[in-house]
């Protein structure tokens, strides 16, 4: 069906793009999480006194009961591999030369999503994984201060 007949000789498209640049405020809990990661090399969570949930990374409020979270906890650098995947395309959808291993490592009731440094054949859901941090001098207070996770040996 075509209610409108196209002319095959006509110019067909106009191209345009929009450079979008934003900054994202870490907020009170985020600033604390990233400062402690940068300065002390620790992963911290926040505990909801009302419902008992431990949020990792730390946040300022509980999404379950809406309580304000003011209790912070060091959850260590070792978590449990909850799930993982092997990515064969990059962020823009182009094929990767080297596939990327990505996992979600459980800490408390939350966790950290990050790259994994491992042989995929060695990975098992439920295994212990340890965060590998950048050297202190190179850390800037960002999720990339963590290089990734590797199996605990």
């Amino acid at each position, binding site marked *: *069906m*075509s*209610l*409108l007949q*196209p002319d095959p000789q006509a110019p*067909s*498209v106009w191209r*345009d793009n*929009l450079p*979008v640049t*934003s900054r*994202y405020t*870490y907020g009170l809990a*985020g600033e604390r999480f990233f400062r402690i990661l940068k300065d002390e090399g620790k992963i911290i969570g926040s505990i909801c006194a009302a419902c008992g949930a431990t*949020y*990792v*990374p730390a946040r300022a409020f509980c*999404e379950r009961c809406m309580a304000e979270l003011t209790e912070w906890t060091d959850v260590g650098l070792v978590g449990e591999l*909850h*799930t*993982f*995947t*092997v*990515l*064969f*395309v*990059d*962020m*823009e*959808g182009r094929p990767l030369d080297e*596939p*990327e291993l*990505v*996992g*979600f490592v459980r800490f408390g*009731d*939350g*966790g*950290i*999503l*990050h*790259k994994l440094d491992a042989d*995929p054949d060695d990975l098992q*859901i439920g295994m212990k994984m340890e965060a590998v941090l950048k050297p202190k001098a190179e850390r800037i207070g*960002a*999720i*990339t201060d963590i290089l990734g996770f590797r199996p605990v040996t």
Partner: protein
Amino acid sequence: MNERVAIVGVGWAGFRPKTPDLSYKEMIYQAAVRAYHDAKVDPRTDVDSFVTVAEDFHEGTSIADEYTPDQLGAVMKPMQTITGDGLHGLATAVMLVRTGLCRIVVVEGHSKASNILTLDSITAYAQDPVLNRPLRLNTHMVAGLEMNRYLHESGTDEEACAAVVVKNRRNALRNPLTSFGADLTLDEVLAGPPLAWPLGVHQTARPVDGAVVMVLANEQVARSLTDRPIWIAGIGWCNDTPSLESRSWATLPYLEQAAHMAYRQAGIRTPFEEIDFAEIDDTYAYKELQSIEALGLCGFGEAGALLKEGVFDLDGAFPVNASGGSLGAGHLLDATGLHRALEAVLQLRGEAGAHQLEDVQVALVQSWRGVPTTSGAVAVLTN
């Protein structure tokens, strides 16, 4: 309050991988003219309000909702845009009718995916900017992570996921509104290129272009317009947390909630017994199995085995995605929920053609906004 709302007209344009001849407005215009003809209404005089679903980054236009009235006949009329899936738009239209504010409401969704030159980058821009996006990972990783955990917890195997692809693309061979009909074997699907292991390229729906327009009316108007109204007996929607860090990776609790909401309105207690067929999410093959379970059609971990037994086949006890689904037709981005509702309407009217199901009275329609979202919407339609 007007209790019953019916779909009294449907129209569509597409669905195909590319639409180089038509602008998105012309594509919507085609679908709208078809829907108004089907409903026997004049949008300029009969329609009280219009709803579209659109997402600015997909449109390539800021404040894209400003560009929606003209192609629908909605200039100088009440008009609103929902940033959600087509079923969220349908729910909004239902509410406008049920308040009594409007007698006739039009809902529209479309995809001009072929004009989006950086779709993966746009989807990546939906990741949490502080916790996830700095890792510069393709967003299909969310599906890979979810599929792996779902298989682990439910005991479902990769063959069951491949069987979804075989079923849906085979069903698509009977449906002219599809682009990816194929007669594949399980081995061909499993041997396909990987995308986000255990997820493969063949288990991932490809985006296509198209537009869907529906005309809704209250009961009195519906009965005056048509002798075959399709009733929206229930409609529900729900979101889980957006956080990748605190969501469930194996189950879809938000979809369970959305289904409860829709079933409650429709008075459905045992969906597998009381519903005849379903058009549901298969953006990724495993999602069909996960969604079947969340919709309460079977227990957790049972969908894969039932699918392999043929229960969800075209001639099975409970056909799922008889249309070919998104794996067979392609994925219509924000219009996907309306695409599924359209296929359900055609079935309930007995107009589905070569994939028509026999004696169907109750349809289940469900949609998801795709990675990285946790957004579910469910509708129950009856004839």
